[in-house]
């Protein structure tokens, strides 16, 4: 990146971040929650962008990582008194990482469409297990719990308000973005991108492609689990619906709408999708997916690089 582009990038980053930080002062309660939700779904979409956009593997199983993050957080919040935020994050990440390791071991043997189908079926396995293991997971009803307080043990502890929760989520999403951006620019990220461009050649050069793919899936699953923890903290419940593969499908939609391989694009895509959903459900009530699905199919056909890619090309012209 040239010096000028670096300056432009960081200026844009700071302006957007500053706008997001002051946003809750200008927004009513409903929209604060809504923005928090966009950020959480955006984090989930961003995590799957590591696979879809950078490694060229379309995962239809991100709901498993997201859901396990949720149930992991639920386990921590239900068993420890008082509920601890740190433990919730820890449990959620461990659960998501364990599942990601399991899925990665099997699914990375396969490529392209087979990878997509396998990840989908794996997420369904976890869905069925969670749905039928009623004693542990509450089955269809899911689990409800109280929200932990924001704090560091022994130092301070304040209960979350909508505003502080928003800032907390914003901080985590921003940090995740910076970490993931660094990862994609690291030698490791370069290898992932070369797998996307030409897997055979990457193998021929001597990179252990399978190992890189496994790490990529685990990294992606870890951040998806983090999104699950945040969602659990925000909504104070965990439900099997979030492990169902339709959630994974929506995550892929966010990616395609926003623009894959950009990290910011998926967050934008999540924002656009949720806003459109909000707008359409005023007119179509629960059938909002009909117009949204049509828009999505049209975007796949006519705008495969997504909103961000489209804007970028338009700006460059």
């Amino acid at each position: 990146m040239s010096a000028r582009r670096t300056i432009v990038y960081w200026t844009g980053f700071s302006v957007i971040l500053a706008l997001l930080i002051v946003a809750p002062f200008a927004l009513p309660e409903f929209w604060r929650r809504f923005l928090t939700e966009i950020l959480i779904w955006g984090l989930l979409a961003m995590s799957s962008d590591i696979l879809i956009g950078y490694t060229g593997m379309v995962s239809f199983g991100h709901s498993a990582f997201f859901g396990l993050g949720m149930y992991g957080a639920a386990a921590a919040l239900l068993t420890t008194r008082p509920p601890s935020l740190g433990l919730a994050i820890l449990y959620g990440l461990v659960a998501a990482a364990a599942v990601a390791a399991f899925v990665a071991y099997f699914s990375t043997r396969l490529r392209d469409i087979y990878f997509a189908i396998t990840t989908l079926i794996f997420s369904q396995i976890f869905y069925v297990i969670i749905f039928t293991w009623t004693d542990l997971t509450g089955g269809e009803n899911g689990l409800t719990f109280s929200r932990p307080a924001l704090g560091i043990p022994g130092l301070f502890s304040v209960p979350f308000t909508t505003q502080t929760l928003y800032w907390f989520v914003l901080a985590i999403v921003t940090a995740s973005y910076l970490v993931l951006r660094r990862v994609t620019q690291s030698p490791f990220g370069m290898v992932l991108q070369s797998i996307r461009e030409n897997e055979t050649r990457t193998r021929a050069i001597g990179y252990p492609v399978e190992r890189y793919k496994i790490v990529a899936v685990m990294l992606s699953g870890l951040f998806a689990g983090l999104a699950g923890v945040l969602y659990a903290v925000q909504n104070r419940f965990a439900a099997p619906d979030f492990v169902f593969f339709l959630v994974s499908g929506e995550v892929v939609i966010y990616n395609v709408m926003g623009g894959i391989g950009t990290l910011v694009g998926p967050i934008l895509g999540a924002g656009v999708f949720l806003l459109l959903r909000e707008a359409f459900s005023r007119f179509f009530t629960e059938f909002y997916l009909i117009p949204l699905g049509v828009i999505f199919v049209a975007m796949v056909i006519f705008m495969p690089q997504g909103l961000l890619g489209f804007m970028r090309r338009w700006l460059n012209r």
Partner: protein
Amino acid sequence: MLEQILIQTINGIVAGMILALVASGLTLIFGIMDVVNFAHGELFMLGAYVGVITLAATGSFWLALLVASLVIAALGAAIHVTALRPLLGRDPLNTILATFGISLVLQNYALWQFGPVARKIQEPFTGHFNLFYLEYPWYRLVIAALSAAIIGALWLFLKYGTYGVWIRATTQDRVMAQAMGIPVPQVLTVVFAIGAGMAAASGVLFGPLVGVNHAMGLDWVLKAFIVVVVGGMGNLGGSIAAAILISLIESYASLWVSPAQAIIASFVVLILTLLIRPTGLFVPTPK
């Protein structure tokens, strides 16, 4: 116990034949067009709904079966022309995304049009025969036979029909087929229509066994995906064998656990397949 096992064997084969009918449409579409059809379950579901409507209007089950297949085949052709033909030549992953979008639209359309209450299709005849302590309905055996007949007809069509030969030629080498004067885009549309019609037929046949509702396609498309992966993508014979194998395993498993958990058995088959032979159980060893 032995009786139960025998009964479950018959149940498994019946379910397996329907699953084979769904999966053979899916594997046909994949093998020939490189399209992973996420909307296949929705075509199955809409087929069942068209069957419900035709049955209510005419009272004839067989007419309903025919009309549903034709209507959904036409719908499949329309979907292919509008949404999938523009994606020709792009990465097959694009077709997953497009068909996923289509499945969302169709599923919600069905919910909007027909409401959340399950409908029932009356079976064409209600005879039973005695199977140990059970009164086993003849209809179930008829479904299995009919599914087998439809798949057999498909096979004959692919083997001897003009379009069948074109379809096979397109599978082997799309560019060469085009050069020989075969209208490749039309052939692909016909393939998609045939697959859609087969999904609709299985929807109508299966309708009497369970209720018809807007979400019924979800379970089936997942099972069909498992079958297609276990049988080897694009392999008709393998899909049929895998469908029966998986349905048998699920029936046996449901002797011990609830049917909802029996699905895990087929997941296990899938994982083992991926470990031992990622290309599919019923295909010759790849070179």
